[in-house]
């Protein structure tokens, strides 16, 4: 099977998953006990308001028809409107997304800058002091909730030392002000993922160093440096890509917490604000959005893994 066949096959497999997640997200509203319209608007709503919502959401039609209409709208980018501000949900997501995207991207970069060298070094100097320290730090990293690390960062660097702002999104005050505001949140979010990635890099590097072709490369007279550079690192990074890709989804859920801790106006905090107000169209739209991003990134990761790794069989 060629790469293109594999690509086509993966895309075909992704379709039912998309359909499935939309069904789950659609069902959420209907899991609420009682009449959804009353549940959504609360007891204070007038009969006309309830009637209007019923009409807008097609609540009097059969469920499969409601789902059909809903998914048809979703495919056209229409995720409904906020119950409170009447603003289209897709607009709300688009306006909050840059904050989350910047936070996730910087966190990812931070985590990779720490994790890849640390993982490689730790594997090469196995059981040395460096290795032990790196592993203990990584273990602490996976054991600490990243939102708590964020709180501790605020207490130390913003409240006690007063070096950095305790939160917010400051790119409107210029690039450097924005970046300064990103240090604590991206550091907290990136640290947790650095730990996961570092453990992965380390174990796959150790795995690679055991392989026969490394021995062959050594036997053929390459220096240890060349063996590691040309053969080991490249092959150890490929499986790590899968882990990094999976983490993009987790970075998004981490962003929900980090944005809450640091008062950043991203999609994550929007979800929490909408939850507090029980603004279901926003909640529904955001959960669908998060899942879609997660599925698409997994797909891209699988494909790039297949593309980069000549050994893989497309099955």
């Amino acid at each position, binding site marked *: 099977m060629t790469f293109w066949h594999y690509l086509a096959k993966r895309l075909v497999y992704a379709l039912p998953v998309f359909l499935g997640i939309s069904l789950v997200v659609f069902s959420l509203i209907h899991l609420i006990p009682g009449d959804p319209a009353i549940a959504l608007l609360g007891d204070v709503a007038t009969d006309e308001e309830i009637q209007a919502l019923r009409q807008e959401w097609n609540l009097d039609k059969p469920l499969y028809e409601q789902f059909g209409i809903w998914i048809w709208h979703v495919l056209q980018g229409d995720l409904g409107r906020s119950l409170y501000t009447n603003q289209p949900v897709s607009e709300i997501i688009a306006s909050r997304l840059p904050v989350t995207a910047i936070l996730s991207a910087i966190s990812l970069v931070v985590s990779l800058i720490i994790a890849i060298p640390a993982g490689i070094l730790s594997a090469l100097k196995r059981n040395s002091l460096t290795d032990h320290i790196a592993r203990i730090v990584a273990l602490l990293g996976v054991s600490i*909730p990243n939102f708590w690390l964020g*709180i501790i960062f605020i*207490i130390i660097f913003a409240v006690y030392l007063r070096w950095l702002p305790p939160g917010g999104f400051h790119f409107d005050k210029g690039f450097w002000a924005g970046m300064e505001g990103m240090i604590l949140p991206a550091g907290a979010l990136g640290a947790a993922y650095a730990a996961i990635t570092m453990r992965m890099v380390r174990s796959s590097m150790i795995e690679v160093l055991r392989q026969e072709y490394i021995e062959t490369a050594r036997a053929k007279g390459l220096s240890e440096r060349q063996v590691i550079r040309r053969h080991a690192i490249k092959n150890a990074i490929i499986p790590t890509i899968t882990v990094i890709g999976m983490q993009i989804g987790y970075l998004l859920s981490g962003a929900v917490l980090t944005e809450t801790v640091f008062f950043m106006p991203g999609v994550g905090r929007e979800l929490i604000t909408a939850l507090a107000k029980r603004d279901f169209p926003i909640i529904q739209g955001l959960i669908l959005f998060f899942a879609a991003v997660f599925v698409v990134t997994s797909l891209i990761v699988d494909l790039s893994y297949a593309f980069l790794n000549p050994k893989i069989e497309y099955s």
Partner: protein
Amino acid sequence: MVDTPQVLPIVAAEEEMPHRGQLRLFLDALFRNKLSVIGLIIVVFMIGVAIFADVISPYDPNAQHLLTARLQPPSAEFLLGTDQYGRDLLSRIIHGTRISLLVGFASIAVATLFGIMLGSIAGYSGGLIDDAIMRVMDILLAFPGLILAIGILAVLGPSVVNVIAVIAIVSIPQVARVTRSAVLTQKEEEYVQAAMVIGLRTHVTLFKHILLNCLAPITVQATLLVAWAILTETALSFLGLGVRPPTPTWGSILFDGKDYILLNIWWMSLFPGLAIMITMLGLNLLGDGLSDALDPRSRED
């Protein structure tokens, strides 16, 4: 059902002999690893704290000292300080252990039960049933766990039982996946192949044998999932979606403490986090130790 006597000795031998040896090797490897022993000690200690919370807490966790001791820093009287109602933090953290461990263990117990059921049925029967079950699992796995948990809780409303249910639902696919792949591996084993060739009709017996041999990877997965579940409970409570006040949980203390961070009331945020960290450390060390002990290659190192 017809018992086929020729087969039984094979199955029995496979179960008795190498099995006991395997368990031995596994336990040896586990206890030789100092880190996993430390992990085990931490986990047992935290369970002890949860059980004896009433005895070791210096105060009633919900007793308020509104006039005398609001937001007090750590002192001899209140070792870890007090919160905004003057409640003793140490006592609240000790009692918080109960909810955190209860949610962690109960949700994963439920998830393991359903996950083993679905995963083993999928792996054992294969074909259409396998496809159907695993596609549903794929859909659940397509959501970032915390996000799906938030979505379902938004509908169900916050309570201990709902938090347990939600974390269980989100974890089932993980257990099902591990179980399914373990079952598939076992199906290739000689004793199963032999039984199938001879036409052993007692599916139940075979099924039981396969499952017994799959317990190891499931245990590792479950240990790591308990850590994840506790972390998720904390996150949900921190977001105000978890257990309702005044019941103390580590996440809800952090939720309360959030409003006082900028006032330099650091103890409300620091100490519950340390409790989480120590528990996570214990579970992660134990999980790592279990998975190393199960991997024959790393036993040699």
